[in-house]
């Protein structure tokens, strides 16, 4: 199976609150000096791709989009985990692009990579959380689409996927080629790379494509219909009241407060 996995590098979402800041000029999170990680669910998507490759064979290509030099660690980790090769689209803008813009660039990159059976990405990015890239890629690539996939099975040549739904799960049969966005599950916890593979990752091919070279991605003509006006931290007015004493005292205080609030 030819699988392409889209990986986004984001500032660690579990950054302590004191290190979280918005840059008013870019209207995005300040990245300078903050640790970068692969977006949470993109790692699950990569793990799903690798498990599928382990089972049925094939090739996994990691695809990233971002300023060059920054994407380095994400690519190295993806290759160390088992991806066969990587394509890094160099985006000098940095990180201001909205989902629709990113989807356009990724579509062009995927077309240039060539054939694929599956494109996998995380169900949502850990930072901007739009949940649009997967479905937009499916439309642009005329591929089948399922989002929030937790498990994939290949049975008798057909692709069976489990989608997380409000009421439980849906089991779907999917025709290839398909774009699937992946959510976390006990079966797809990302593997730790073996140290041997961290070393051999160095030898795996990494192509760097300047974004401007990808056709159909000039962003001047076709601006997205939506503009970010500002990004603000909501007012946090409540300060936590810590109930003192041992468990008995704390519980007594809590139940009293809950009664006062008419919750008990």
């Amino acid at each position, binding site marked *: 199976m030819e699988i392409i996995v889209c990986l986004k590098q984001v500032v660690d979402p579990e950054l302590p609150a004191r290190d979280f800041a918005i840059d008013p000029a870019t209207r995005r999170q300040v990245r300078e000096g903050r640790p970068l990680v692969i977006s949470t669910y993109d790692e699950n998507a990569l793990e799903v791709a690798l498990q599928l490759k382990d089972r049925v064979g094939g090739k996994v290509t990691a695809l990233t989009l971002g300023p060059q030099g920054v994407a*380095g*660690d994400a690519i*190295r*980790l993806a290759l*160390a985990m088992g991806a066969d090769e990587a394509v890094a689209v160099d985006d000098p803008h940095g990180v201001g692009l909205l989902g629709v813009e990113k989807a356009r660039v990724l579509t062009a990159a995927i077309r240039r990579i060539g054939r694929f059976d599956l494109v996998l990405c995380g169900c949502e990015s850990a930072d901007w959380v739009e949940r649009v890239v997967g479905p937009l890629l499916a439309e642009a690539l005329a591929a089948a689409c399922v989002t929030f996939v937790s498990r994939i099975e290949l049975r008798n040549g057909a692709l069976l996927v489990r989608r997380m739904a409000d009421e439980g799960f849906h089991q779907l049969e999917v025709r290839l080629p398909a774009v699937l966005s992946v959510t976390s599950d006990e079966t797809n916890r990302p593997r*730790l*790379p*073996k*140290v*041997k593979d*961290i*070393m051999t990752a*160095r030898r795996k091919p990494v192509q760097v494509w300047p974004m401007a070279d990808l056709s159909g991605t000039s962003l001047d003509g076709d601006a997205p219909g939506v503009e970010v006006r500002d990004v603000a931290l909501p007012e946090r007015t409540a300060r936590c009241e810590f109930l003192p004493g041992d468990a008995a005292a704390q519980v007594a205080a809590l139940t009293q407060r809950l009664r006062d609030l008419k919750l008990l």
Partner: protein
Amino acid sequence: MDFELNEEHRLIQATVREFAAKEILPVAAELDHNPRYPAEIIASAAALGLLGLTVPEEYGGAGLDGLANVLVQEELARASAGVQAIVTVQNSLVCDPILRFGTAEQKRRYLPRLVGGEWLGCYCLTEPAAGSDAMSLRTRAERRNGEWVLTGQKIFVTNGLEAQLCIVYARTEPVPGARGISAFLVEKSFPGISVGKVEKKLGIKCSSTVEIVLADCRVPAENLLGARGRGGPVALATLDGGRIGIAAQALGIARAALEECVAYASLREQFGQPIKEFQAIQWAVADMATRIDAARLLTYRAAWLRDRGERCTAEAAMAKLVASETAMWAAHRAVQLFGGYGYIQEYPVERFFRDAKITEIYEGTSEVQRLVISRHILGRR
């Protein structure tokens, strides 16, 4: 001079840190309170490739350098010094001498199993009457019917209970001291080798420390490791790497102590404020951080020299000396900083205190390290 870790080193360090946090840290206290061999952790470590870090790819290893080994050992020890003791013996005291002094056949026969975690290895040097004066050892090996027959008693053997392969130092020549010693690869399945007393220890409890008894133990001739009579150099070369591994262990313990102190000092309030506001605590933390960093740089430098094939005996001794004394000092300071809670097993610092002590003793006591360093400067008698 570049003080940066390269991409691979950073990724290896991050990977092992995550592994340690997920699989070792949650059970570290339990492994100390109810000691048992952490078989599942060692198996996972083997799967990641942590048991033969510097073993070349052709034998199943990752072919990493000594600096990578130091990074890995520190991360493991940060979570559990006991678990790390098992891993460092495998790497530095078993795989390393086989790599350096083994024949192609010996490497082929033993390294893949050790790297893969199928076999655990141990190092048998110390005897009841030969501790710091290791080269006065009395275990003897006689040539008989085309084999070697070993008789003697080895003590304080880490991994000895679980190991399938033992590197045993025995006297083969009728001369005293290092020049009469040879090294042997002894499989537990050979006739005449058995595990004797299993020791109960102050710390690093999940790693076994046992007596190995050799009673006319028959070892095939091809299991001589290195040249006959050259066991001394094997032991010493091995100890250089072993000491760097222990220095890394000490760094991990010391860092654990520091991190716990930092967390505690932010949370513990007395006299109306978090204790981190008090100068005594601030100075303690500053001292800990500085001394740990100094020890770390000594350790990295020793590993760097060894990787370049340069002489590093004195530098390895310095690293081990400073790191182990720092770990003991930091752990002691940490218990004090925690006050009453530092004395209680529910908090990890008392374990660090007990674990740290061994780093000042094994693989050459601090006294021996000082001897090695002074000889390097002042020359031998």
